[in-house]
C-alpha cells in the first residue's frame, strides 16, 4: 500500500437489534451531504423496524398476524414484502417459507427473514445517490456494497461460525450483496418448512450475488434445506458462496450467470 488510500469514514448504529455499519470511501467521505445520506439510511431502517417488527405489538405485521387488519389495509411496503415472500417461496422450491417461519404456528405470515435485506436495499438508495463515493452497508452480518470511481472492490471476510476470530474465506466484491445465514443466527432457528423443525445440517451458508435480498433468501433456504443444499446451490446462476456443514466440511461454489 504505497499509494494513498482513499478517504474513508464509518458510522454504526444499533437498529432492529443489530449493528448497522456504513462505510464510505472516496473524495466525498467527509462531506455534509454524505453524513446526511447516512442519517437517512438509519432513519429508513428505523421506519422499517416500526412497520415490520414482530416484537412490537402495534406494528402492521403483528396486527396482520392477529387478523386485525387485512393485507389490503397494509402499507405498500408490507404488500411489496408479501409479494416478494411469495416469489422467494417459488424460487427456493419452498425452502424459504415466510408462512412457515413461526414455530408451532404454520400459516402465520412472518417476513422477518426477508425484511432486513429488503429494508437495507431500499435505504441504500440514499448512498447510491451520492457521486464519487463507494459504500459498504452492513446489517448484522449481511452486506451490500458498491464501488466508487476507483472501482476498487470491497474485501469481505466470511466469518467462521465456530470461531468468530477466524474467517473461512475472503472475497472481493465490487457491486452486490453478501449474505450469511446460520443455524443459530441471533438466537433464532431457521425452520425446515418440510418438518417444522429447526434445520441443523448446515452451520452457515454464505451467498454472494448482485442482489443482497436474493443472496439472503438463498442463504436462508440453503440452511433450511440442509445437506442437500450442496447440490441445490449449483443451480443458483450468477452466485458464488460457501457452505459449512455441521461436521466442518466447507463447500465452495462459483456459478456463471
Amino acid at each position, binding site marked *: 500500500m504505497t499509494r494513498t488510500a482513499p478517504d474513508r469514514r464509518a458510522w454504526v448504529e444499533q437498529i432492529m437489534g443489530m449493528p448497522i455499519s456504513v462505510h464510505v470511501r472516496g473524495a466525498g467521505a467527509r462531506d455534509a451531504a454524505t453524513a446526511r445520506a447516512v442519517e437517512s439510511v438509519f432513519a429508513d431502517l428505523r421506519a422499517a423496524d416500526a412497520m415490520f417488527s414482530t416484537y412490537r405489538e402495534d406494528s402492521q405485521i403483528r396486527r396482520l398476524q392477529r387478523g386485525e387488519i387485512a393485507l389490503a389495509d397494509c402499507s405498500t411496503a408490507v404488500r411489496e414484502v408479501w409479494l416478494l415472500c411469495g416469489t422467494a417461496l417459488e*424460487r427456493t422450491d419452498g425452502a424459504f417459507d415466510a408462512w412457515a417461519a413461526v414455530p408451532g404456528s404454520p400459516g402465520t405470515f412472518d417476513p422477518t427473514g426477508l425484511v432486513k435485506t429488503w429494508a437495507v436495499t431500499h435505504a441504500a438508495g440514499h448512498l447510491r445517490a451520492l457521486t464519487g463515493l463507494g459504500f459498504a452497508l452492513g446489517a448484522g452480518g449481511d452486506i451490500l456494497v458498491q464501488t466508487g470511481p476507483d472501482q476498487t472492490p470491497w474485501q469481505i471476510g466470511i466469518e467462521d461460525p465456530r470461531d*468468530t476470530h477466524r474467517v473461512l474465506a475472503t472475497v472481493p466484491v465490487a*457491486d452486490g450483496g453478501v449474505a*450469511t445465514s446460520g443455524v443459530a443466527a441471533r438466537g433464532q432457528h431457521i425452520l425446515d418448512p418440510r418438518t417444522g423443525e429447526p434445520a441443523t445440517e448446515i452451520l452457515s451458508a454464505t451467498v454472494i450475488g448482485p442482489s443482497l435480498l436474493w443472496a439472503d433468501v438463498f442463504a436462508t433456504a440453503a440452511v433450511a434445506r440442509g445437506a442437500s443444499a450442496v447440490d441445490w446451490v449449483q443451480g443458483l446462476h450468477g452466485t458464488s458462496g460457501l457452505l459449512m456443514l455441521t461436521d466442518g466440511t466447507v463447500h465452495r461454489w462459483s456459478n456463471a450467470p
Partner: protein
Amino acid sequence: MRRIIVALGTTATGLVLLFTWPTSWNRPVTGPGQATALGGAGTSQGTAATGASSNGSGSTAPVTSTVDGAVVQTPYGNVQVRLTVTDGSVTAAEAIAYPDRGGTDVQISNYAIPILSQEAVQAQSATIDMVSGATFTSRGYIQSLQDALDQANL
C-alpha cells in the same frame, strides 16, 4: 429470476443497440480517413451482423477495417458500437460503451462473479473491510471483528 434479470439487461442493451443501429449502419464505413486498417484475414467475433457477410470474394486478400459509431445518448445511458468491415460488408459488431448510469445498470453491465479465497485464515491477518456472518447480535458485536473495523475508520 437471476436469469430473467440478466435476460432483461441483455434485452435492454439489445434494444438500445437496435435503436442506435441505423445511425451506425448508414455511416460511410470504408473511408480511409476514419477507418483503421487491420490487414490480414477478417476477425469476425460478433454475431448480430454476420448474416449478410461474404468475405471470400475473388483472389485479392480481404480488406478489413473497423469504425466506431458516435456515442449515442439513450434513456439507458451512453452506447457506442464498433463495427468490423471486411470488403465492404459488416462482419462484426460490438458495443464498446454500455449504459453506465449506476445502480442496476452497473450491476448488469459490470457484474463479475466474485471468487472466494481458498484458505481459512486468522481474521486479523487478512485485509478485510467488512465481515459477513450469522452470529451478529448487538451484544456479541462488541467483541466482534466488525466492531474493530468500524473503530478503525470512525
